[in-house]
Each structure stands twice: as C-alpha cells, then as structure tokens.
C-alpha cells in the first residue's frame, strides 16, 4: 500500500528515512526549514562509530552495529543512484587513551559491552602502547594505549547528505526548503502540516526535525525530551595521508584534511566557535599526534548535537496520532543506513516493530 508520507526535516535523519520510504514505494515530501536551521547534519565529524555506544542499553549497541554492517551497501546504493561517492571507509577506529586511569576505564567498558553483547556483537579490544605503535606510528609519548574496533569507520557527512538528496530526487521524492513546519493538525484520516510555503497534507508524518521535534511533538501527543550539546571542530590544511584509521579526536579525510574534534559543551543552542575550546582541541590533538603542531588550521565551526536526556535514540509512533512517527538521535551519520534500510520499511508498513519498543520516550516517564 502506498501512502503519502510527509517527512519534516531534510537533514541526515529525515533524508535517510525518506530515501528508504521511497525504496518501499511510498510517495514522499520532505519539508525542510532552510538555512536558519541548526543543521547538525552539516556540522558533524563524520564518524560511523560503534564502540562505546549502548553502554546501559544493549539494544542501542545492536542497532548501531546493524547500521555499521549495512553502511557499505548503503554507500554503494547512494553512489549508484546519485553519482556521489560518500567517501565511506571502514578501516576500524581507535579511541586513544592518555592515562592509565582512562585505559582501565575503557577496558572495563569493553568488558561490560562484551559481557552483554558477546565479543562477536561488540568486538572492541584494548591495545597497549606497543601494539598501538605498530598501527599508528605517529602517536605521542602521552598515549598509553587505545581501544580498537573493527566495526568503526568514517564518511564525508556533506557528501553523504548530498548523495541522499540526489538519490531522493531520482526516486521521485520532493524536497521543499523554506518550509519549516509550524503546526501539525489532523486532516481526515491524515495530517496537515502548516509551513511558510503553504499547507501540506499527508497520510503519515515523520518528525525528523532535530531539536525541532521537541517543539512539534506536543501538536501530536509526543513529549520528546531532547537537550542541546555543542561540539566544535577544527579543520587543517591538507596533508599527505598519515592516519590509516579515524580516532575519536582526530580523523583524516580521504582528501587529506585533518579534523580535530571531541568537545562537549552545554551552551544552549548557540553554535559559535570559542578560543578556549579551540585551544583545548588543538592541545589534545597534538598530545595524540605531535607532528600535527606544524599544520595550519583553515576552518573552525561549532554545531549542536541532538541528544535525548539519556543519550540514546528515541523512536516512537504517537498513540494519540497514529501514523505520526518521531525519529530522534545524536548519531545521524552512523545510523543513516539503519534508518534507510530498517526503520523506513517499518514506517512504510505502518508500525514500528516491537524490537524498537525499547526506544520509546515512555522510558522517561516514571509513573
């Protein structure tokens, strides 16, 4: 059965879901706010990352791993349909550890994750400094070890988004910008979404508006607890390849730029760069890889992560407004493949499968 689905939000989350819905034969319109939006999809680091995700919620660990397993096929599909190579690569990923305490804490985390998910389900291992030096010869003297996961990788998030938009157009989806949703109301069996570009009617609605979901939720009986968290990123001039895999603080793109990241700030919805954080990011990256000190920084920016209050995704169909689904997560890059190839077919079929029940926002209510 084909339905007309309105997807509110044209970032990585909304676009991945829309791409998947079109693949299921649905008729899709994406309503996007425009460039005044916070645009987490255009400001992130680009990791497709499994290790450390889902401590305390094994279903999230499994969901993340499922997406990572689907990612190369997903990237190929995007390249085939849009002509855009996303730059996805899966050489594994390294979390670098700068103290014995951090190393032990990470060892404990990996052991916990292995106990819950099994080694095959998780697969991150601790490397001591000697083993790490063989993989990453450029590390600094302060690095005591690392946690390596073969399931981690990275992509160019901008090209991923462009690939999605190209493939969506090719599959017959409509993308309308300057059409930020202002309200959602019932319209017969379906819903009407009011925007500055007019009112759009759909049989179903997917809320994929990032922080906007928090403001739109009450219209459709959804209480979605999200919080903003700023991350800042620095980008260096291009340099010859020196880093064979991404790390959680530094990654080198396929074109040679080096990105420094991993800051966490609670500064509301502001996305400006600040000198103190830039200094800390640089210092931390240079502790990990001292020769980065000779590189010039060419760009910096801040972006606001979309986090639920416990950090795990929220997927939920509204009980009072059936056919309205909300999709909320921090990891729009990592989860893009699962959103396109697993979540979208559920929405197309008209209901989230029971295994996603654990991701409902009901977990936040303590009756």
């Amino acid at each position, binding site marked *: 059965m084909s339905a007309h689905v309105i997807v509110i939000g044209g970032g990585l989350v909304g676009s991945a879901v829309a791409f998947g819905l079109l693949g299921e034969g649905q008729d899709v319109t994406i309503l996007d706010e425009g460039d005044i939006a916070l645009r987490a999809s255009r400001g992130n680091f680009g990791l497709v990352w499994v290790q450390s995700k889902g401590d305390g919620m094994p279903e999230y660990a499994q969901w993340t791993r499922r997406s990572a397993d689907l990612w190369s096929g997903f990237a190929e599909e995007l390249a085939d349909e849009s002509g855009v190579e996303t730059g996805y690569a899966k050489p594994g990923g390294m979390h670098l550890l700068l103290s014995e305490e951090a190393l032990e804490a990470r060892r404990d985390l990996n052991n916990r994750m292995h106990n819950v998910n099994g080694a095959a389900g998780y697969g991150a291992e601790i490397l001591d400094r000697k083993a790490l030096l063989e993989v990453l*010869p*450029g590390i600094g003297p302060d690095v005591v070890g690392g946690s390596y996961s073969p399931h981690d990788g990275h992509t160019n998030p901008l090209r991923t988004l462009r690939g999605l938009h190209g493939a969506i157009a090719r599959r017959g989806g409509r993308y309308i910008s300057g059409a930020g949703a202002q309200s959602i109301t019932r319209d017969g069996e379906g819903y009407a979404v009011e925007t500055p570009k007019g009112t759009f009617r759909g049989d179903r609605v997917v809320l994929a508006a990032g922080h906007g979901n928090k403001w739109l939720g009450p219209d459709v009986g959804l209480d979605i607890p999200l919080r903003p968290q700023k991350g800042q990123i620095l980008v260096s*001039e*291009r*340099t*010859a*390849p*020196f880093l064979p895999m991404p790390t959680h603080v530094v990654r080198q793109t396929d*074109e*040679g730029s080096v990105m420094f990241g991993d800051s966490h700030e609670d500064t509301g919805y502001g996305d400006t760069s600040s000198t103190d954080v830039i200094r800390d990011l640089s210092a931390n990256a240079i502790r990990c*890889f*001292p*020769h*980065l000190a*000779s*590189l*010039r920084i*060419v760009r910096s920016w801040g972006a606001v992560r979309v986090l639920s209050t416990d950090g795990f995704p929220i997927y939920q169909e509204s009980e009072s407004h059936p056919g309205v689904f909300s999709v909320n997560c921090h990891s729009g890059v990592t989860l893009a493949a699962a959103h396109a190839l697993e979540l979208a077919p559920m929405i197309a079929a008209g209901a989230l499968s029971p295994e996603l029940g654990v991701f409902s926002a009901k977990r936040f209510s303590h009756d």
Partner: protein
Amino acid sequence: MTDPSPRRLDESGAPVRFEFEGREIVAREGDSVALALAASGIRHLRDSVVSGDPRGMYCMMGTCFDCLVEIDGQPNRQACMTPVSEGLNVRIQRGAPVVGESA
C-alpha cells in the same frame, strides 16, 4: 598555461622582484603573490591533491584555498593572501605536503 593577454589595471607602486618556478616575476608593491602571477599570465599554481588536475586562482580573497603554493619551502601558502616581497621563492605545489616523518 598562460593567458595571452594579461593586463594590469594599476601600474603604480614600486617594482618588487620574486621567483616563480625559477622565472623572475616583476610585481608591484602591495600585490599579492596571486595577483602578481595573474598579471604575468600564470594560471597554474598547484595540482589538485584529489585528482591531480591543475588548479589556479578562484576567489582571490582567502576563502577557496585553490591558489595554494609553496613559498620559501613552506607548503600550502595561500598565494592570494601573501603579499609579495623581494626575493620570495614561489613553487608550484604538487600533491599534499607531508607532516612529521613521512608515513
């Protein structure tokens, strides 16, 4: 790759001489390296790290990072943001520079 008819709009300013790939370029005080090269008919400043294709000047205001050259041995210098000075040694940048020990 040369433009057959480079034309300088402003001929004022004292001459400043520097080298590009061993060739003497006569610039004017206040020129950027990119401007001086453009006025001398030079368009090919580097080869793309990604495709190897030739790259030249584009935005002329520091934004596009297309006009990267090697100046006095230092790679990745923006020609449009570097003022000319007497005796600079400017080279075409081929590929990406290496940091630290070569990997």
